[in-house]
């Protein structure tokens, strides 16, 4: 399907009327097309109304049966979702290769934009941003830096870079959807039994890199959620993604 075809496939998509390969292709497109995502949400809500209109009386015994069944069915853990499942690989990249690709990442998109914006801000903020950028660069270029790549919800991709000697972690995301007013992405350290706030992340759309606030301090991974502006003391929504730190 070409891109015009893809855009007109929203109807067929919510009706589950595409062939599996087309559906997969459309979902990839969906991750990058906000207008389509909005339309899909609205059209899905529309089809639900069609469904409500054919509601049928349910035999009484069905409730008993279903309630009995669920009592023996394990629920999927709250942090795993079909599309947000993290496919994580971990390895120590050869230092040169790592340095090269990180240097590319840092100099090309994320940091350049960041530094550009910082320069437009007040001088103190610029200095702060520079310091953060320096810290970020320091983690990215650390001799013991290890990388883990995962898939976030909606086709976005996340990269975690960890330096154990510095006890710091950096997060790079590409393709996160824009959030509406009053919402923000928040990062978290996963301490096993609890999520510890690790700063906000305003990087929808293009590739953005950010240093997680605070030390790793034994955290086994990180998560990213959508929170009300200003962030929350603990996650209030399902994670957009969860990633394990490289060992």
């Amino acid at each position, binding site marked *: 399907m070409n891109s015009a*075809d893809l855009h*007109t*496939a*929203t*109807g*067929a998509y*919510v*009706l*589950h*009327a*595409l*062939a599996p390969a087309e559906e997969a292709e459309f979902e990839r497109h969906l991750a990058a097309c906000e207008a389509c995502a*909005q*339309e899909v*949400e*609205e*059209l*899905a*809500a*529309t*089809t*639900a*109304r*069609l*469904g*409500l*209109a*054919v*509601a*049928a*009386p*349910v*035999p009484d015994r*069905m*409730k008993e*049966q*279903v*309630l009995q*069944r*669920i*009592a023996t*069915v*394990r*629920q*999927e*853990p*709250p*942090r*795993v*979702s*079909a599309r947000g499942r993290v496919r994580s690989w971990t390895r120590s990249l050869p230092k040169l290769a790592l340095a090269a690709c990180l240097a590319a990442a840092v100099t090309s998109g994320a940091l350049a934009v960041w530094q550009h914006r910082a320069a437009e801000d007040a001088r103190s903020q610029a200095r702060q941003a520079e310091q953060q950028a320096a810290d970020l660069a320091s983690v990215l270029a650390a001799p013991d830096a290890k990388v883990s790549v995962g898939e976030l919800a909606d086709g976005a991709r996340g990269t975690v870079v960890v330096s154990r000697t510095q006890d710091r972690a950096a997060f790079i995301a590409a393709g996160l959807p824009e959030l509406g007013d009053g*919402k923000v992405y928040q990062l978290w350290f996963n301490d096993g039994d609890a999520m510890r706030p690790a700063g906000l992340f305003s990087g929808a759309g293009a590739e953005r890199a950010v240093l997680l606030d605070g030390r790793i301090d034994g955290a086994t991974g990180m998560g990213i959620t*959508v929170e009300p502006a200003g962030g929350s003391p603990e996650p*209030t*929504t*399902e994670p957009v993604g969860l990633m394990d730190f490289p060992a």
Partner: protein
Amino acid sequence: MRATERADASPPPPRGKDLAEALTAVARGDQEAFAEVYDAVSAPVLGLVRSVLRDPAQSEEVAQEVLVEVWRTAARFRPEKGSAMTWVMTLAHRRAVDRVRSVQASTEREHKAALLEQTPAYDEVTEQVESRLEQQRVRRCLGALTTLQREAVTLAYYRGLTYREVAQLLTLPLGTVKTRLRDGLIRLRDCLGVTA
């Protein structure tokens, strides 16, 4: 994302925000909340599955599977992506359609022959869509579509056909069907005042 407590939080079945809250509680393993969700969604789920599958025994089996899946995967529900009812109904349609297609895959040739002989089911479906306010509204809005839009949408949704099958049945080009499915749903959306 916690919705505020409502004084008028009515006895079951919950709707709208209350249903979303109940589903969120289900994600935490709350079986009582699941019973509330069941009361709200079981009739539309069974009705939709039956509309696609027809066979009553098979429909009940698939509807039960859908309801168990609601329990199992409640943690995937994302309130910011749409209502709880939409989430459940999308799941139900998906499962019903999957069942149709898995049966189809095994008897592809017979199926194609049968499909071509069948008369479209939309008359029957729109018959079912009568009485009660919501049903009347949906029926009125379906009636406001062009014939092609209505046929395409009802065959895909209520019968679970792919757009290729719809094209074959209505002897229309694939692109036309795809477009009719989209603009038909858009017109329905506007007629029903759906805001997602």
